[in-house]
């Protein structure tokens, strides 16, 4: 990171109020956001719009969790999608084979994800950036090929079919579209809030220090390996959560959920929205899903269109959309203060 960028990061860091005040503000924003999302079905009967929000929840959780790695810690994982796939398959398989209540399956899936992420992370996080990117990618392909070849258990290239049972619990019936919608929104808001707390905690600032200067962090007595591994596992948990929302939504799990393009899309989402702000990936998610839906309606060659858009962002803007907005605001504020 150059001095210029470091200066920008400082300008973006919250300056008003203490940590507690900011936490209240975050909770308030989350409550308002949830209230707005949850009241959406009252105003519109459009199933397509609600479906869109559910997909945004799944991808948003996933993409924001990647930002914990890429934006906050400087770990460019190119295999983060494996945890998305793991969440979808883990949840689907547990529900199909064991028939336990949904919350139990969720917790069990998270536990499995944590163990696998800890093993993969322990191998990967000491590698330098390019090696890290590709070895995580290799693990993703390993999981993908395991899913494909272990057909008797996972359904192979057909995916997990036959639907995932969604028994009601605590009065919540996820087979009901509105209930599923509300639950997805709640998971999204809770997940984002939790990740926000992680990012703003002392641990979150430790991660930023590791990103900017790992050697210095190490001299200050921080166990860099352990911090990186911790955030790797945490990010995997949220990605797995996104996968579970997706599995609930499509009532199945498909090998594409664990394919490398999912990771590529998540990285692109981060790029699109910007990694210097917390909500950047969420903005990117909405943009990418809108883009995907529009492009696939007009052409079957959406790879070309998507590729050109990526090039425009990577080579033209060199930053994400929210990065731009944030910079614009800080410039205006500086101008307003007469600096």
């Amino acid at each position, binding site marked *: 990171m150059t001095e210029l960028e470091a200066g920008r990061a400082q300008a973006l860091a919250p300056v008003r109020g203490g940590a507690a005040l900011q936490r209240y503000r975050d909770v308030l924003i989350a409550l308002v956001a949830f209230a707005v999302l949850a009241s959406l079905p009252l105003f519109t009967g459009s199933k397509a719009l609600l479906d869109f929000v559910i997909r945004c929840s799944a991808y948003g959780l996933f993409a924001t969790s990647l930002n914990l790695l890429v934006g906050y810690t400087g770990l460019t994982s190119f295999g983060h999608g494996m945890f998305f796939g793991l969440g979808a398959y883990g949840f689907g398989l547990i529900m199909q084979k064991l028939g336990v209540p949904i919350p139990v399956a969720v917790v069990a899936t998270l536990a499995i994800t944590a163990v696998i992420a800890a093993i993969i992370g322990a191998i990967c996080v000491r590698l330098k950036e390019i090696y890290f990117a590709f070895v995580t990618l290799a693990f993703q392909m390993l999981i993908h090929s395991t899913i494909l070849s272990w057909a008797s258990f996972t359904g192979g290239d057909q995916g997990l079919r036959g639907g995932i049972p969604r028994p009601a619990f605590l009065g919540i019936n996820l087979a009901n579209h509105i209930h599923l919608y509300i639950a997805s929104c709640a998971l999204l808001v809770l997940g984002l809030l939790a990740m926000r707390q992680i990012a703003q905690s002392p641990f979150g600032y430790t991660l930023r220090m590791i990103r900017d200067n790992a050697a210095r962090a190490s001299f200050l007595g921080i166990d860099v390996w352990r911090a990186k591994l911790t955030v790797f596992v945490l990010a995997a948990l949220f990605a797995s959560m996104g996968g579970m929302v997706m599995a609930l939504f499509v009532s199945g799990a498909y090998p594409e959920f664990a394919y490398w393009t999912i990771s590529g899309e998540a*990285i692109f989402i981060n790029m699109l929205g910007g990694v210097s702000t917390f909500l950047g990936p969420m903005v990117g998610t909405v943009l990418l899903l809108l883009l995907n839906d529009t492009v696939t309606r007009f052409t079957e060659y959406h790879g070309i269109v998507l590729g050109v858009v990526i090039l425009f962002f990577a080579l033209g803007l*060199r930053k994400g959309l929210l990065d731009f907005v944030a910079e614009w605001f800080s410039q205006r504020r500086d101008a307003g203060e007469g600096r």
Partner: protein
Amino acid sequence: MDLDALAGCLSSSACLVTQTTSGLIIGMLLFLVAVGLTLIFGVLKVVNFSHGAFYMFGAYFAMAAYQLTGSFALAMLAGAAGTAILGLIFERVFMSRVYGADVLMQLLVCYAFVLIFDDVVRIIWGPEFKSMGMPSAFQVMPLFIAGGVVPPYYLLLIGVALVAAVVLGFGLSRSRIGKVIRAAAHNPGMVSALGINTGLIYGGVFALGGMLAGLAGALAAPVRSLTPGMGFSVLIESFIVTVIGGMGSILGALIGALLLGLIRSFGSLGFPLFTEGLMYLFMVIVLVSKPTGLFGKEAA
């Protein structure tokens, strides 16, 4: 798991020869792709994530040229030269803009081109599986070595890859151009101050890397089926090769590729469902015991 099949094969010389040759051709093709990847990384310090696309284009160019002219030699030439030009343009116009940017940016530019190139192939040649067909010159009786069947084309393929390895190895260590390239990898600022056009070197190395991948694709065209997206699994495997052998080492790429090829061919007997898993497992073992790869130096 089918360990009996593996043991049975290991005790029969015919099966041993057949499996070893098939492992060797997998390894040699991988070597050509991986050595380009490792060369580009060594000099330009970027990982060409779109390297698999060059392999794919090499195969399609060769098929197109072969269908047009009917000449196998021209097909190979088209595959290699076409991808070399493509590599030069790609590096000069796009990749040269993201040197020094963070890895994320470089990965993204390449990711964009993986998507674009796959669709371009889909538009020009269609989404279905294509096959180039074996040239008539090689449609002869296979050789029998110790009871094992060895098609003559395999020998050509192994020979071409070995020649490429030797030329590259000696070219880089002995020739003047090789020295300039190594100097540019070490200290581009100094090389440029000495009046050497580093942009040209970068473009040239990228073109060379692309050409090697294209040549691999062209060589593979008669024995593999062609499909858009065929480059990706090759990219992943060749990356595993460079990780095992050590980034930037040509010898490492050769050894890594051969090991991987043999693991694939013998692994498919013993563990038919977990052949790919074996490769990843091997990579993990190497990484854990020697993080820089078998022949890698400590990262500069």
